[in-house]
């Protein structure tokens, strides 16, 4: 099944999803290929800050201006992915007054609306802020759900004729006559949605242009095409708290440093972060000190964090880039700006463009700029409308409000479903009766899980990203099996089993970094539930050896009378164990 299209976009993060949406809306025939789930790389591993631009207002005013501009656009076109939390830059006594003033002036220079409030007012807004916080700058930071955002972009692209292929790693970039003419991908379980145990296939997708939107992995794709793209991947930790200690984004107002931001996100708060260059975006150490640093340093701002429960920690890799020869030593000093590398101009290899750097908040602007470039290259004349056209789920604010009323009056669960689904809520929720809750922690119902399975196949991590099921306190302990059970409507038992194990193990990875206090107790409870009560670890269905059922107790009535049987267990037996006497 080889295909000729206009553009192949490689990478299903925010940039790739934004690009494929933009291209599709401009009438180009586009395919997006992603090696994992959408958001699998960096996008799914960030703290979810919708920048106001405040963080860059001193060091990088160009980025700051882009941020505030796009911040406004996203509130408009992606309302159901954004929570308008507001943000504070707080100053502790030891933080520099001079820098506070610089920050304030910088924000004003970049047209970021700001308000200075005193410590008392800051604590009135956020009661858990430390007593000695002196003052703060309030500005329009927000929280954005990167999963929902990418899914909405991909869905819109598909509605405009694009094809989206996840779990389809690129295995080769096709170069013919000194020109990139497409890619070869491996569909891990065949094209379309991912289903466990289905055989893989290979496909050549020929395209007039290839967009490399693989972020931290851009060098790998470049290598397949024979060009150098020197991305400098830099890791950062994010620690997830079990509740929202704050409802506003809290930034530390100081020049730069680790552990300086708390982002409220859905039911949780996310603490961030560190900034350390790594060699391999796939395999880098996740270190204890990073987690400790988040808790220790950020509890200077919000003391309650010190003894609060953390659910897990995860790491992301920034796709930092700087033009060759810049030679910045410290990754925190590398620009957060994005770069568009036309390999025709740069490496004499037409047919491919790479985009690196940048940040989620400005993903749409980056997508617009690369789409302009691709349209130029292809001689395609069309205008970009992505700044104005709402994403699926965010079409109508009035409709959202209506849904909130419709579903919100009776049940907080339905209200949360409504928030996640946006204007799609009635389509999804009307379709399922009975509609019990599958994930108690996050209030996710069967209807949402089934809807997500419809889009994602048997990949329960993709279902998780779409619904938040298994992302709460129990980290899947009480719902992994329930989510998996919903697969049984469409898929045979072994698929259900594999999918369940995969999600359970994925949830475990993040919990390893939160194993103390209540989360350690939770982990033990999960272990007892899944190993003791369900016996998933010792399930004969998964073991290599066969079970001799005849060697086990078949009930008192079926026991043959014998010297070792029937009654007083005080007599020793060794007969039942191995030979199976019946």
């Amino acid at each position, binding site marked *: 099944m080889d295909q000729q299209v206009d553009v192949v976009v490689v990478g299903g993060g925010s940039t790739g999803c934004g690009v494929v949406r933009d291209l599709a809306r401009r009438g180009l025939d586009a395919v997006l290929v992603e090696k994992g789930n959408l958001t699998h790389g960096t996008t799914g591993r960030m703290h979810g800050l919708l920048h106001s631009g405040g963080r860059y207002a001193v060091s990088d005013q160009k980025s700051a201006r882009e941020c505030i501009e796009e911040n406004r656009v996203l509130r408009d076109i992606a309302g159901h992915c954004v929570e308008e939390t507001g943000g504070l830059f707080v100053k502790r006594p030891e933080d520099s007054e001079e820098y506070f003033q610089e920050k304030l002036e910088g924000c004003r220079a970049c047209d970021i609306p700001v308000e200075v409030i005193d410590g008392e007012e800051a604590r009135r807004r956020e009661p858990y802020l430390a007593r000695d916080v002196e003052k703060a700058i309030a500005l329009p930071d927000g929280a954005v759900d990167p999963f929902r955002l990418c899914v909405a972009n991909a869905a819109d692209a598909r509605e405009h004729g694009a094809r989206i292929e996840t779990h389809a790693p690129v295995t080769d970039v096709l170069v013919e006559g000194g020109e990139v003419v497409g890619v070869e991908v491996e569909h891990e379980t065949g094209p379309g949605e991912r289903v466990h145990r289905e055989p893989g296939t290979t496909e050549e997708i020929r395209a007039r242009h290839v967009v490399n939107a693989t972020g931290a992995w851009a060098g790998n794709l470049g290598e397949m095409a024979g060009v150098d793209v020197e991305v400098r991947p830099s890791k950062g930790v994010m620690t997830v708290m079990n509740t929202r200690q704050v409802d506003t984004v809290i930034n530390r107002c100081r020049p730069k440093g680790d552990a300086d931001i708390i982002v409220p996100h859905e039911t949780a708060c996310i603490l961030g972060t560190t900034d350390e260059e790594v060699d391999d975006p796939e395999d880098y150490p996740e270190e204890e000190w990073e987690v400790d640093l988040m*808790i220790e340093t950020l509890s200077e701002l919000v003391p309650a964090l010190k003894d609060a429960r953390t659910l897990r920690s995860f790491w992301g890799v920034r796709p930092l880039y700087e033009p060759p020869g810049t030679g910045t030593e410290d990754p925190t000093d590398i620009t957060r700006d994005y770069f568009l590398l036309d390999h025709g101009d740069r490496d004499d290899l037409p047919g491919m463009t790479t985009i690196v750097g940048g940040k989620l908040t400005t993903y749409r602007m980056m997508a617009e700029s690369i789409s302009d470039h691709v349209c130029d290259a292809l001689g395609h004349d069309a205008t970009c409308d992505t700044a104005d056209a709402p994403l699926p789920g965010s079409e109508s604010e009035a409709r959202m409000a209506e849904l909130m009323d419709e579903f919100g009056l009776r049940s907080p669960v339905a209200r949360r479903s409504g928030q996640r689904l946006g204007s799609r809520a009635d389509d999804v929720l009307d379709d399922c009766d009975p509609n019990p809750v599958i994930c108690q922690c996050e209030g996710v119902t069967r209807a949402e899980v089934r809807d997500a399975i419809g889009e994602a196949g048997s990949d329960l991590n993709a279902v998780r990203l779409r619904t938040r099921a298994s992302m709460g306190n129990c980290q899947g302990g009480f719902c992994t*099996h329930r989510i998996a*059970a919903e697969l049984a409507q469409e898929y045979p038992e072994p698929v259900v089993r594999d999918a369940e194990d995969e999600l359970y193990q994925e949830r475990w*990875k993040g919990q390893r970094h939160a194993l103390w206090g209540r989360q350690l107790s939770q982990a033990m*409870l999960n272990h*007892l539930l*899944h190993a003791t009560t369900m016996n998933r670890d010792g399930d004969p269905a998964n073991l290599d050896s066969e079970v001799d*059922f005849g060697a*086990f107790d078949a*009930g008192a009535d079926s026991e043959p009378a014998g010297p070792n049987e029937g009654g007083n267990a005080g007599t020793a037996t060794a007969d039942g164990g191995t030979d199976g006497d019946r």
Partner: protein
Amino acid sequence: MAIDSDVLVVGGGLAAITSAVAAAREGADVRLVAHKSSTLRQASGLIDALGYVPATEPAKPLREGPPTAGRKLDRDEWPDPEGPLADPFEAIDRLPETHPYRVLGADALREGLELFDDLAGDAYRGGHTDRNALLPTYGGSVKPTARYPAAAEAGLASDDRPTLIIGFRSITEYDARAFAGRLEAAGVPFDVAGAEVEFAEAFRADTKVTRFAKALDHDEAIDGVPAREALAKAVGPHLHDVVDEAGGVDRVERVGFPALLGDDRGDEVRAELSDRLGADVFEIPMGPPSLPGLRLEDRLYDALDAEGVRFETGNPVVGIETAANGSVETVAVDRKGRETPYGADAFVLATGGLVGKGLDSDRDGVRERAFGLRVEQPADRYEWFVDDAFGDQPYARFGVRIDGDGRVLDADGVPEYDNVFAAGGVVGGADAAREKSASGVSLATGIVAGRQAATEATQ
């Protein structure tokens, strides 16, 4: 003025009750104080002894050094456990040396099970043999267990009669078809089918199992039809769902339901359903809140009462006072903010593990909460876990260490106090979850601790 007894048992679960009864039967005057309701209600109600010897060689980490999330794990790289074991006793020698079964000996387990049989009476089965039974779990697996509720008996996996597994569309714990498929994948010696039926739909979504149980107990009318009849009617059309190997239709001879078939009148509910369906009926033990666990808890507390043990729940032990000779004289019980000393000649610590909150932890370490006893642990919390969720998790073995008499040991391996014994989840060394040994460890450590505490107190 101190509240005194010969033996004071701290804790309220299976191990605490076992040790309290064991001590009382030795003639001691026994008092039991429990902080919270026991974890029995979170447990399946099955009494496991030893079902597997799990692999203990270090699983291959995802990477050397600190963990990474980057690479995918391949479950085939991790070794299978030995088991399921038909005989729980003969495998004890192959457990790690520090395992409570190794420390106390197989007889402790045997005697603990005997005591349990005595306390549980006709509500439990399995005491007729030393062999383990295999029972279906709600995860769709089968698991080895030593004792099982009478309500689960017809579900034994070594029984070859054709079986129907019932699921309810509004109860989300399992899908009955996937359940049946998974039993087949386990190679069970019977034909099996799963069916999702519409009984529970008469209740609102997310109704608790206790509510269903009550409706069946009282045979409440559901849309005008008594609940038991309504349930039998919902199941009726599926009695021929099972297809045998030759492609023929089997009429099922037994039907499994999630464990919600009545609470107080479970026997009656099962008998009526069985009568209506013309097939044996069994319950599949479920997760929390677990009716079989709650029923067992009720039964054990009745037994405790009958043995003359005084007990109180709701108040934690928050500290200890030692005498000049180094033994513990009193413990401080926090009664609504006021610390009251409870004195005894011997103490049994049975406060549970990480779940029961007998153990507490923070980023710096794991502690025993009530007596401040030593808990063996790697100093670095990144050595508390391994990368495979079902691997040989060090945290799963956390707890205090005991000697052959159940006395708690200090770092040098000598008893910390002459009169402090420990039992149940607070005792470390077992990986109860993977071994399927949680109840057996509670019974074995409970009976030893109870008896030795009584001996210590009355000598």
